[in-house]
């Protein structure tokens, strides 16, 4: 009796043990595969977004808006690196699945894009628009990304800018009858007690205690829609590209001179290149502005224009 009991018990224990191991391995495997699948979908979405943003960037349009709809509530994370070469921007997607945020941790990097947004934008729908940045020649198209859940109210906007925002037809940007709506982010040009204050004379954008500086409308929008860290990092990346473009224009000036057409801006280009080299933050943009204006003026009046 005792022997039989021992025999059955051993078989059962052995079977349960092995069965348990197989079952555990199967559950673990399924979990792992589903996590890989989620990561794959996130990476694909991030690459797709990058591709969509590419379609925004053509040469001569002034400002254009597109709408991105994602399958689930998501966070589009913007990661900017300004070191090494031209720096890079990383896009990653966190998805809200089973009542929690699932982060893929995979960044899709682009060296040739300049994305301005908060650290992350949250929602299912997103708007993106682009505007060319010229300093004094065209450097890049800047991309501004906002969530459809975040609405901006522009108060006291200069007429030209108001027209431009209205022409974008972006449903989360308002220029009229929105001042009293407290759920909206108030962007003020004439008042100071707002979420975002724009100083057109001092060329600054203030959010609470943080202040950044801009030059031109493209960087002004960039400062409004992005966090300070992202903005400063992207400005440095833009200046890295401006420096390389300056070198290309210096070389072009010499080639044009060889065919006998002097462009008269070579000295200013050399000065501009050395000034860009010492830029540390957006605060230094004002110093560069002087040389940039001189260059623009010189090129506009040159016999052979470089740009």
């Amino acid at each position, binding site marked *: 009796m005792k022997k039989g009991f021992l025999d059955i018990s051993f078989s059962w224990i052995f079977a349960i043990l092995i069965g348990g191991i197989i079952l555990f391995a199967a559950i673990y495997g399924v979990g792992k595969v589903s996590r890989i699948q989620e990561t794959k979908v996130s990476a694909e979405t991030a690459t797709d977004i990058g591709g969509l943003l590419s379609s925004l960037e053509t040469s001569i349009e002034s400002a254009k808006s597109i709408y991105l709809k994602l399958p689930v509530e998501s966070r589009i994370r913007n990661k900017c690196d300004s070191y090494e070469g031209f720096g890079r921007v990383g896009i990653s997607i966190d998805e809200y699945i089973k009542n929690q945020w699932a982060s893929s941790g995979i960044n899709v990097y682009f060296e040739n894009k300049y994305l301005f947004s908060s650290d992350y934008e949250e929602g299912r729908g997103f708007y993106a628009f682009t505007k060319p940045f010229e300093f004094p020649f065209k450097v890049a198209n800047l991309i501004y990304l906002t969530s459809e859940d975040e609405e901006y109210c522009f108060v006291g906007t200069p007429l030209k800018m108001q027209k431009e925002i209205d022409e974008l037809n972006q449903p989360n940007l308002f220029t009229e009858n929105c001042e009293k709506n407290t759920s909206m982010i108030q962007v003020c040009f004439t008042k100071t007690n707002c979420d975002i204050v724009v100083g057109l004379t001092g060329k600054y954008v203030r959010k609470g205690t943080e202040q950044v500086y801009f030059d031109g409308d493209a960087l002004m929008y960039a400062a409004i829609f992005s966090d300070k860290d992202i903005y400063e990092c992207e400005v440095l990346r833009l200046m890295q590209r401006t420096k390389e473009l300056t070198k290309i224009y210096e070389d*072009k000036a010499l080639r044009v001179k060889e065919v006998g057409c002097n462009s008269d801006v070579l000295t200013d280009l050399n000065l501009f290149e050395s000034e860009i080299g010492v830029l540390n933050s957006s605060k230094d943009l004002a110093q560069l502005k002087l040389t940039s204006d001189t260059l623009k003026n010189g090129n506009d009046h040159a016999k052979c224009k470089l740009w």
Partner: protein
Amino acid sequence: MRNVNSGKKGQVKIQQMAFMIVTLTIFFILVGLFALSYSYSGLKSSKAALDEKNAMLLVSKLANSPEFSCEGSFGNEKVSCVDFDKVMSLKSSSSKYETFWDFKDIEIRKIYPSTNDCDNEKNIKCVCTEQNYPNCQILKVLSGNSTGNDVSTFVSLCRKESFHGTFYDKCELAKLIVRF
């Protein structure tokens, strides 16, 4: 005698079970490998599709990017107009742009007016260098990997020329080819 028999029976049972476990393990490993290879092949094909889609978008964007575009130097701003002087300068600083556009290979090939000698890519006289510029047919802006898929777009290739002391804009038809 009974003890020996029951011991043998037990051994056979354990052997059977061991065989079963080994078979089951091999079966699950094979199923897992099959599932993994299937999902990986899907990943590769979707990456290739996304790469091609992006390349199609980027090649049209490339001609209008500040490093290539004519901007206002040949009259009004033009779309798909490449500044020959600028891309020649870009060629000399191309090492910095190696990873900038996600393309390993960027090439501009003059189509009209064409030179018959330059149909053969190996003719080194046709490839643009500082010595033969601008009388050349093929400009290799980035020359990394010569294998891969091609995507191309037609562009006008413009530069300044002088004739008897006067300057004019000379534009030729060219093809901008990228390889990814």
